[in-house]
């Protein structure tokens, strides 16, 4: 099953690397231009569920890595059945100085809150997302707080440390 999928992928997409670290889990690394087509390919193969969309800040490589985890609800019943019980991890790197990517809402509608979250916490813009409004955070931050160059310790000292304690001299 995995071998067949691997052959099919390498025939369809250029420069795709398919590895499998564990049973039932396949990691596909692809360049960002082909990611949307790859996700459509998997959706057509029965991977109908986007389990997670996340981002990793690879500051040493000057890139953000977007991670899509896809699964299928269909059961693995026969040889030509859709690949149930398989977990697909699709990774693609986008440049850190131009953090923009296409929204996958029209492929997986449940990506909407994930993309809002990543936009808020990593500052990655998703083209085609209609509602990139704040989701969790209450305060304004100098840079998005999940980026690796966000100095939490200094931020805490500057913001929460500067709030004075309530003393007897005040009133």
């Amino acid at each position, binding site marked *: 099953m995995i071998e067949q999928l691997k052959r099919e992928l390498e025939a369809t997409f250029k420069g795709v690397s398919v590895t499998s670290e564990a049973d039932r889990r396949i990691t596909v690394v692809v360049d960002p231009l082909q990611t949307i087509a790859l996700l459509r390919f998997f959706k057509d193969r029965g991977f109908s569920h986007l389990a997670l969309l996340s981002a990793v800040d690879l500051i040493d490589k000057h890139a953000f890595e977007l991670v899509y985890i896809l699964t299928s609800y269909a059961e693995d019943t026969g040889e030509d059945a859709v690949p149930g019980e398989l977990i697909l991890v699709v990774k693609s790197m986008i440049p850190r100085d131009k953090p923009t990517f296409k929204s996958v809402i029209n492929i997986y509608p449940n990506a909407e809150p994930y993309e809002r979250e990543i936009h808020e916490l990593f500052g990655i813009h998703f083209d085609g997302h209609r509602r990139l409004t704040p989701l969790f*955070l209450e305060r304004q931050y100098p840079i998005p707080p999940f980026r690796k160059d966000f100095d939490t*310790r200094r931020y*805490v000292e500057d913001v929460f440390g500067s709030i*004075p304690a*309530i003393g007897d001299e005040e*009133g």
Partner: protein
Amino acid sequence: MDRNQIAKWFKEPSKMANKYSLHAIYFCTGCGIIEVPPVITARWDAERFGVIPVATPRQANLFLITGYVSVKTLKAIIRTYEQMYEPKYAVAFGSCPINGGMYWDSYNTIKHLDKYIPIDGWIAGCMPRPEAIFVAVTHLWTLIDKGMANGYERYKKYYRAYRRNQELALGKLEWPPLYPIGEHTEGGECD
């Protein structure tokens, strides 16, 4: 009832009544709420100490903040505290409300809760055992006896400073001040 306390009952009946019937509102902010169900149910039975959970802040006079306080929950904590009737006692449970605990360098967690609302008692630990709640309750009795559990009076007295700190942390607040900010009330008197 302890016979030694009969004199106290005659002297300050309202204080004694408050002391032995603490109606607690549990603010389930973090992991500390795990300790609360065994406390209020048969295993440890908080009602032995006169502590009973209530549904809304308007019925409560003990505010138990269990766990870390994020910026967003601070807003709810302030509103809850301001809705409670006086006399009201706030107890912070766990090390996170004291100084941030394991979230001491988190970008989104309030570090010192007593900068925003007055706290009458602290229960240290991560997590404290349910017995610690009872130690805190009995300690709170002593504080109420001595008139030292006066967080609500401090809140009134220093309301301007509390409100300023709340606005520093949360930006502009959506609700009007609980007490008039313009004038300065003297010496913690309350009516």
